[in-house]
């Protein structure tokens, strides 16, 4: 790709795009700094700021459409400058950012509104909205930054918000631990990301997107591979992909709106954004693409398999998210047209996964925070709106036409089959398999929750529907789940062309229609199987299961692996070092001191108090001095 990337300076309405970030940021600051004084109206301020940002985003979007060069940047101030290194606090509004801005602010707004109801009885609601706004601001920085450092700034910002929100109920040890785990695993990815930035600067002398894009062809393939792998590792961290996947399910310790917004719709797709944004790097190296595809495929299967075995409604959805983001990685890894497809899937996923989470939240809201799907059943009678909206999202995610999931997922499967060699079969089949598994676990979830006999305990006397402030966002998201896919699959790739390049389709190893049919077939098989198995509910106690299911229940031993390989040795190492520091290094110093003291104590015994001893030491000294002088005289030392 030899065309030069150039960002035009922002003018007109777009020069106000800093407000996109500023609105939620200021709101967050107000909410967090004012403290209890803002308790009464804080949540509304939170919603308002995001809503305003959404409106501004829409306006900016339209303004961008009117621009000839659809990439507009706004350098606010010099951020970091030293020697030849210089980055600005600069924002970039281009088609990719625009799409993300709309998703973040749009879905974000809905979830904010929903959270007003969901968090109504929580004493920390104002704090919650502060964090939430902070998250939106950071996420907008992530997607609006015009250089890698800005992206990283947002990247870490969302990490922080995620941490804060996961451990929002910090009094619960599990929540605190989960937050810490999320932050730490993200940090691993972040470290890789930041090293990638260093590498870019060392190689190219710039970290701006345009500069990198225009010079990436000068890099050797080894450097590109390294760069890509580092970025990928960063992306996997944020997106909960293999190998940094373990934190995402634990992140469900946070309040449900958090799961919906951060750990389903927006933040976790940051990795996808990063790879899409860096498409010029990933496209430049086919090995790199293979790695990305492999990560995507592997993760989508892992997520799906584990999702089948989980009984916690939010965990199932979390693993589902892992799996779906796997699809997106698969898409961005495939390159070419699939970049846009991944973004489409991302957007669609944003709608239906948010809907699913909010629905789950609504269920929990009505069920006294019960999350075990084995304890649900027959809820469709009690919470109709939730049931309907959840059902639509369910259908969307399993990819049943004509709902959005079909339009977003099926092209990725097709694209997988369009690879050049035998890997087409490998990844194509993996993608298909994933679709089937998705259908299975989502159907299981849906059936167990809303249908079949009621299995909840008697203390929940009146399962009830949520208040309108929660259901209205549900409805809106359901609409999105239904329609978004179909609406976007055409225009969005075209819209993204300036960023991601022109659509170049390869030859699929199978006919397009065959793949479509296969995809629908596996979906139906999966869903049907689940329906058959779970239409009558399930046992509320854990059942003995085969090795695979046991493994799946235990997250395929990923946590166990982490514990055995990183945590335990780490603790041991720490303890060993504490010992070493105290007894070794400090001990050495203290030892010197002690030996001086001991030597002193022993030497002072020579001062016996007997004058004759003193005389002896003098005579000895005299003898030695005279001997030494004579030795010098005779040249014995020479």
């Amino acid at each position, binding site marked *: 790709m030899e065309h030069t990337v150039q960002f035009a300076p922002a003018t007109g309405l777009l020069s106000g795009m800093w407000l996109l970030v500023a609105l939620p940021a200021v709101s967050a600051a107000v909410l967090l700094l004012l403290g209890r004084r803002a308790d009464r109206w804080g949540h509304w301020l939170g919603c308002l700021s995001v809503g305003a940002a959404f409106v501004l985003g829409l306006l900016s979007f339209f303004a961008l459409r009117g621009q000839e060069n659809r990439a507009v940047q706004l350098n606010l101030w010099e951020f970091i400058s030293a020697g030849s290194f210089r980055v600005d606090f600069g924002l970039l509004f281009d088609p990719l950012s625009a799409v993300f801005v709309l998703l973040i602010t749009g879905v974000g707004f809905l979830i904010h509104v929903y959270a007003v109801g969901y968090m109504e009885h929580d004493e920390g609601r104002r704090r919650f909205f502060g964090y939430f706004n902070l998250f939106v601001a950071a996420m907008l920085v992530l997607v609006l930054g015009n250089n890698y450092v800005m992206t990283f700034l947002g990247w870490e910002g969302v990490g922080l918000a995620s941490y804060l929100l996961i451990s929002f109920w910090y009094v619960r040890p599990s929540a605190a631990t989960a937050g810490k785990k999320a932050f730490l695993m993200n940090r691993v990815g972040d470290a890789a990301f930041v*090293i990638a930035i260093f590498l870019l600067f060392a190689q190219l002398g*710039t970290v701006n997107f345009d500069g990198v894009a225009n010079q990436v062809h000068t890099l050797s393939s080894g450097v590109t591979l390294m760069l890509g792998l580092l970025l990928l590792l960063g992306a996997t961290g944020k997106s909960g992909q293999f190998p940094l996947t373990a934190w995402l399910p634990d992140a469900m310790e946070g309040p449900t709106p958090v799961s919906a917004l951060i750990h389903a719709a927006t933040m976790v797709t940051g990795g996808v954004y990063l790879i899409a944004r860096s498409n010029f790097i990933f496209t430049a190296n086919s090995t790199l693409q293979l790695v990305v595809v492999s990560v995507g495929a592997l993760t989508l299967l892992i997520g799906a398999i584990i999702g089948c075995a989980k009984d916690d409604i939010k965990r199932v959805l979390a693993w589902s998210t892992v799996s779906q983001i796997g699809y997106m990685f698969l898409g961005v890894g495939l390159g070419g047209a699939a970049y846009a497809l991944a973004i489409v899937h991302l957007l669609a996923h944003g709608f239906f996964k948010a809907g699913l989470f909010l629905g789950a939240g609504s269920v929990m809201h009505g069920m006294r925070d019960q999350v075990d799907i084995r304890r649900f059943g027959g809820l469709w009678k009690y919470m109709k709106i939730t049931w309907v909206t959840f059902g639509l999202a369910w259908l969307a995610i399993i990819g049943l036409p004509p709902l959005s999931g079909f339009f977003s997922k099926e092209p990725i499967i097709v694209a997988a089959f369009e690879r050049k060699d035998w890997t087409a079969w490998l990844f194509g089949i993996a993608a298909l398999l994933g679709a089937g598994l998705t259908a299975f676990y989502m159907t299981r979830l849906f059936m167990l929750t809303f249908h079949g006999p009621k299995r909840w305990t008697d203390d929940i006397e009146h399962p009830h529907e949520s208040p309108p402030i929660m259901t209205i966002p549900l409805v809106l998201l359901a609409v999105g789940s239904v329609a978004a896919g179909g609406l976007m699959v055409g225009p969005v790739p075209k819209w993204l062309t300036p960023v991601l390049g022109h659509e170049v389709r390869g030859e699929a190893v199978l006919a397009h229609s065959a793949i479509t049919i296969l995809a629908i077939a596996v979906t139906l098989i999966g869903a049907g199987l689940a329906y058959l198995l779970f239409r009558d509910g399930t046992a509320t106690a854990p059942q003995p299961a085969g090795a695979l299911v046991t493994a799946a229940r235990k997250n395929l031993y990923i946590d166990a692996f982490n514990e055995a390989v990183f945590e335990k040795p780490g603790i041991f190492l720490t303890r060993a070092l504490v010992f070493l520091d105290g007894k070794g290094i400090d001990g050495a110093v203290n030892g010197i001191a002690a030996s001086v003291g001991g030597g002193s104590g022993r030497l002072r015994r020579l001062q016996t108090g007997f004058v004759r001893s003193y005389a002896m030491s003098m005579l000895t000294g005299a003898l030695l001095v005279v001997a030494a002088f004579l030795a010098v005289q005779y040249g014995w030392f020479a």
Partner: protein
Amino acid sequence: MNFPFLSVLTVAPLVGAVVVALLPRTRPALAKQVALGWSVAVLALSVAMWIAYQAGGDRFQFRESYPWIPNWGVRFTFAADGIALVMLMLIAVLMPLVILASWHDAERGKRNVPVYFALLLALQSTMFGVFAAADVFLFYVFFEVMLVPMYFLIGSYGGGKRQYAAVKFFLYSLVGGLFMLAAVIGLWVLGGHTFDWQALVDANFSTGAERWLFLGFFAAFAIKAPFFPFHTWLPDAGGAAPAGAAAILVGVLDKVGTFGILRYCLPLFPEASRYFAPLALTLAVIGIIYAALLAVGQNDLKRLVSYTSIAHFGFIGVGIFAFTTQAGTGAVLYMVNHGLATGLLFLVVGMFVARRNSALVSDFGGAGKLLPLLAGVLLFAGLASLALPGTAPFVSEFLVLLGSFTVNKTVAVIATSGIILAAGYVLWMIQRTTQGTVNPALASNEGMRHDMSLREKVVVAPLIALIVLLGFYPKPVTDVINPAVKATMADVGASDPAPAAGTTEAAR
């Protein structure tokens, strides 16, 4: 502007110290107010100096020089380059806050209150001197004298093993200082019996002599900074010192070490600096990882913070010895930011300790429930300490790693892994102190019923504001630092590597 800022800044706190020390012991409140007012006045003067400083002007500004000991060529020469300026500013900013934060510290041990504040002011005076000196002898004098007030602050007003810690602090520093003394003497003799910094920079030494002299200076600075493996005094000192003093100790006083390397080791002994750079880098990198792991294993909040600082000093060391403009700027910026962040961290920890009368992590647990605001500030300080983007330390850490990556990838990558560990120790600390179920002993503690007082808010607010401001807009500081770092790198004879690939036009 010809106002003798530097000498006045050095003397003023000393005068304040004398005034405060002479106040009657029976009127502690008066002493506090006078000390606070004095330090604020000093701050105002420092701000004036900051304004008067011309970022693009001469390398050394506000130069003053008066004869002192003509026989030895010693002069009272004060001059500040950008590096010194920011450090002076940091001292001036921290001191009023520390005084305010230490409002009740001295009373707890039934100790002499005016003397405590007098010691703080005296310490400020010596620290001003050490950063403002442009005469090697003068620098050495302040370097050593600085120990005395700090020694008494730790030893008389500290907690825990304060005697042991104070003696250890003093001896360690003195040992380093004496190595430096030997080197200073050598420098003086070999450099033509002058102590003038500029003259010594221009002097030529034989390779062997230069290396030995470098080692003499480096030993002092490595102990002061402290670098692995000379660090073991810091956890003891930091753990025993009262929180305010610890904030000063770790936040500013130890920076003399890294400052000294930048100001003395590099320009005076460029060849030796390059020769020993691998050694220094190794020590620094080991320090980053080692201290971070140790920090995880600490059960004492103040010791923990001390260990984190050792890790941070490792970063600064990496930045200095990478010999690139970015890393150098990062290192200097790190010195400032770390002063703010760790200062804040120590002060907040001090507020916790003051309430609980214990610094043991295991004595806390779930404190966030009782003291949400204070816990929030602790979290913020922790995040700043782990160099979260958006806080000031991020910029510096980023620059350090970026700059060192261009010349030494291995070091940079290992150092970068330190940021993971940093998250580990900070979050682990946060979790064990403020999160989780509330420790029953804590709930029944009288002190834990009161969240931050107005005084405490006033203490932390400026620091938080500065950390955030410099996190997003470090330019005011980097503008001052950049020329100085560039000049230092020129002194040491290092130039930034050009981008390995790519066209030069694109680099703009």
